[in-house]
């Protein structure tokens, strides 16, 4: 007499548990705390590897700007910016503003460039004119620096076509002054091309880090839970 047994139902139950568990593990392994130190070390190694003799002194300042945080909706954000001035240029802030979903709140990837640009505008308004700050006129009378900065940020970051004629004229007049202020802020330190190269290099290194290690960590986490599956 033959008897045929099957463990198919057990395999299906295990697979169902795995399907339930996998998204949880995928999210857990993206916790910033699990990546921060390694991402910082890799940024340091990468910049040290590509820096030239006269640039090496700036590596530490760059790495000190590194931030690891959670993205809205789940995900990991690793960010590095230039230590010499505002990370958000006008074009970057405008692009970020256009992509910003107000519902995403503090976790949005696009919030940071916008906030940095708003801080830059406030800085420009607060700086004396003789040091590159905004020239005050009658329209500014009775307003706080924050009021003036809020209005200018609105003019600069609202899509051009959505501004009225007066707003568009104001944007055209303000742009060269703000760009000159940004340039003055970034004049110290490294050439713009080098800053750009360093940021791109660290981005490429981080991409490599995540691509290489994330599947490995997910696999290890699932293996550690094998008994529960």
């Amino acid at each position: 007499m033959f008897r045929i047994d099957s463990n198919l139902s057990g395999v299906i139950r295990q697979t169902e548990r795995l399907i339930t568990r996998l998204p949880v593990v995928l999210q857990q392994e993206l916790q910033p705390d699990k990546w921060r130190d390694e991402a910082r070390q890799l940024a340091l190694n990468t910049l040290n590897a590509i820096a030239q003799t006269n640039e090496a002194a700036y590596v530490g300042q760059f790495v000190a700007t590194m931030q690891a945080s959670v993205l809205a909706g789940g995900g990991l954000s690793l960010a590095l910016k230039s230590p010499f001035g505002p990370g958000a240029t006008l074009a970057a802030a405008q692009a970020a503003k256009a992509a910003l979903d107000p519902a995403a709140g503090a976790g949005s990837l696009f919030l940071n460039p916008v906030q940095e640009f708003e801080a830059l505008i406030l800085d420009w308004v607060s700086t004396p004119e003789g040091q590159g700050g905004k020239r005050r006129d009658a329209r500014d009378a009775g307003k706080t620096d924050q009021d003036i900065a809020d209005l200018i940020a609105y003019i600069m970051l609202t899509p051009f076509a959505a501004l009225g004629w007066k707003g568009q004229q104001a944007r055209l007049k303000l742009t060269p002054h703000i760009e000159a202020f940004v340039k003055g802020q970034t004049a110290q330190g490294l050439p713009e091309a080098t800053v750009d190269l360093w940021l791109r290099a660290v981005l490429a290194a981080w991409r490599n880090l995540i691509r290489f290690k994330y599947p490995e960590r997910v696999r290890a986490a699932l293996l550690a839970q094998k008994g529960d599956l």
Partner: protein
Amino acid sequence: MALTKPAVTELRIESSSFDLWHEWLATYFNGAAHGIGANAPVLFPRAVLRYQQHELPKPLEGLVNEGRSPDGVAISLAWVRPSVIRYYWDTVGGQRQQRAFGRCSWMFWIRAELTDKGQGNAKKRAQDTGDLLFALLQNSATTRDLAAKGIHRLRPETPQLVSAGSGSKPGDPDYAMRLLNCTGSLHYAVRSQV
């Protein structure tokens, strides 16, 4: 050509592997012609070689005895270290020996910088150097010496452009940079387990 540096050791995983990379890269990127596989020998640039914590000279291009490259080329290596180490037992020289291996990823930053605008194109120099390195890394014959010392299973990706470097703008340092990613694994003996 056999490498003279010691094999990867459990006591100095990072530095021993980088020593091997240095010797291997210096064998090829020395300004002489080398054959890769059955191809006719091709001229390799002489490159400045650097590893993670060592900055590059500026200008990059210059005399060899000043630590610079006459071809204005540098290859800098950084790595994503292995996080999971696996162990197995093997018979080595008639003795049972525990061995370990871990997957890792190396990043080769290829930089070309030309100070004299009339002599060439940094972008092309970086591209050619990256292509040669890729050809070396994907060839099991040229990487056999590395494997013999514990650097195995090299899987390079084609070099990607990080910066073209036009040299035409003020402040542009006239360099081009490419990144070549290469995964592989390190194998070494765990001698304490003998």
